[in-house]
């Protein structure tokens, strides 16, 4: 939850001061700044998976007869899409939870997931057109899945921008969360876009799967590698946001303490 800032000029009778924690100030300084071991392990696992996937894609998977080497974009393109959809859907549910019952942890996690989701969305929106140029002869076409992905990315970017501009504002947080809730239905629509509205985007997984064993292994290695990498990035950003929230809490505590001392 956003904590209101108390300046030394705040009225002693103000509700902000009344709401300020009365715990000893020194307790609030116990912030775990050191990087948790679990995060390092997660990062190590994701890197190992990605490196094996890269090697497998380069050395073991065959090139496509028509698309040539550009087909190899597929592995990380789809992996990024999985990561993006998972991040935005999770951010959506966490934002809903935060709207219903405000919680700092849910807010920080939703924000982290949204940011990581946008990074993977940008990965899709750049790698996809490079693949499409070879496959379709054009970089971009306004077909349903592509258009929806672009719109969802813009929505997520606008939520991040709103949060950045509104800083500690509770209203900004609530509006941002309400906008982020749209992530889950939008992700579902992206998933079913080709089935419902057609379009030129291929459906490899839903449309028969990958037949070649090496391609299948490379694909799942890339997917799991990117998902764990997304988790590691989210955890890193989450830790950063939590540290920021704690810093705010300490500042509030400090201001309240100074104000009480002045009153005394």
């Amino acid at each position: 939850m956003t904590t209101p800032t108390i300046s030394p000029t705040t009225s002693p009778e103000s509700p902000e001061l009344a709401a300020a924690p009365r715990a000893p100030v020194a307790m609030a300084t116990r912030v775990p700044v050191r990087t948790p071991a679990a995060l390092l392990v997660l990062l190590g696992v994701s890197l190992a998976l990605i490196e094996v996937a890269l090697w497998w894609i380069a050395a073991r998977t065959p090139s496509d007869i028509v698309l040539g080497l550009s087909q190899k974009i597929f592995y990380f393109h789809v992996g990024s899409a999985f990561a993006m959809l998972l991040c935005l859907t999770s951010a959506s549910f966490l934002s809903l939870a935060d709207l219903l019952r405000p919680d700092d942890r849910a807010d920080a996690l939703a924000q982290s997931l949204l940011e990581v989701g946008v990074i993977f969305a940008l990965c899709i929106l750049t790698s996809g057109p490079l693949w499409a140029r070879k496959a379709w002869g054009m970089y971009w076409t306004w077909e349903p899945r592509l258009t929806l992905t672009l719109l969802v990315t813009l929505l997520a970017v606008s939520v991040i921008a709103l949060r950045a501009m509104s800083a500690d504002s509770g209203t900004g947080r609530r509006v941002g969360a309400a906008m982020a809730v749209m992530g889950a239905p939008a992700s579902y629509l992206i998933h079913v876009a080709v089935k419902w509205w057609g379009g030129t985007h291929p459906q490899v997984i839903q449309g028969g799967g990958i037949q070649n064993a090496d391609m299948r292994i490379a694909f799942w290695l890339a997917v799991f590698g990117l998902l764990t990498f997304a988790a590691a990035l989210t955890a890193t950003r989450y830790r950063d946001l939590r540290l920021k929230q704690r810093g705010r809490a300490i500042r509030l505590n400090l201001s309240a303490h100074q104000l009480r001392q002045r009153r005394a």
Partner: protein
Amino acid sequence: MSHLRAALLRLTAATLLSFGPVCAAEASAPAAPPAAAAPTSANPTAAGASAPVSTSAKRDLSRYKEERVPGGTFMLAAYMVMWALVAGFVGRTLLRQAKVEAELTDLSERVDVLTGHDGDAT
């Protein structure tokens, strides 16, 4: 947070090491004849006809040459852009984290001064 920086360097190196030879092999391989070279009525030269090549057919052939899309370059570009995006995000996160950590250290010192404790922010 040097582990994240090192991780990105490893990823970039792994991408280049994995795909470098593949792209080089593609570049040195003899170019496959374009689809337009197939003996069709639209391409009299490929069909072996001795009739003079029309201007429109010449234009078509030059277009096919221009339209040859280098798959390996596109693949490498896609991977590089992806890692660049991730690197940008990680770099920004590291900067923000350093700022927050500095702020926390400063706050801890202020609290310690206020409470008269030795204090340990970590």
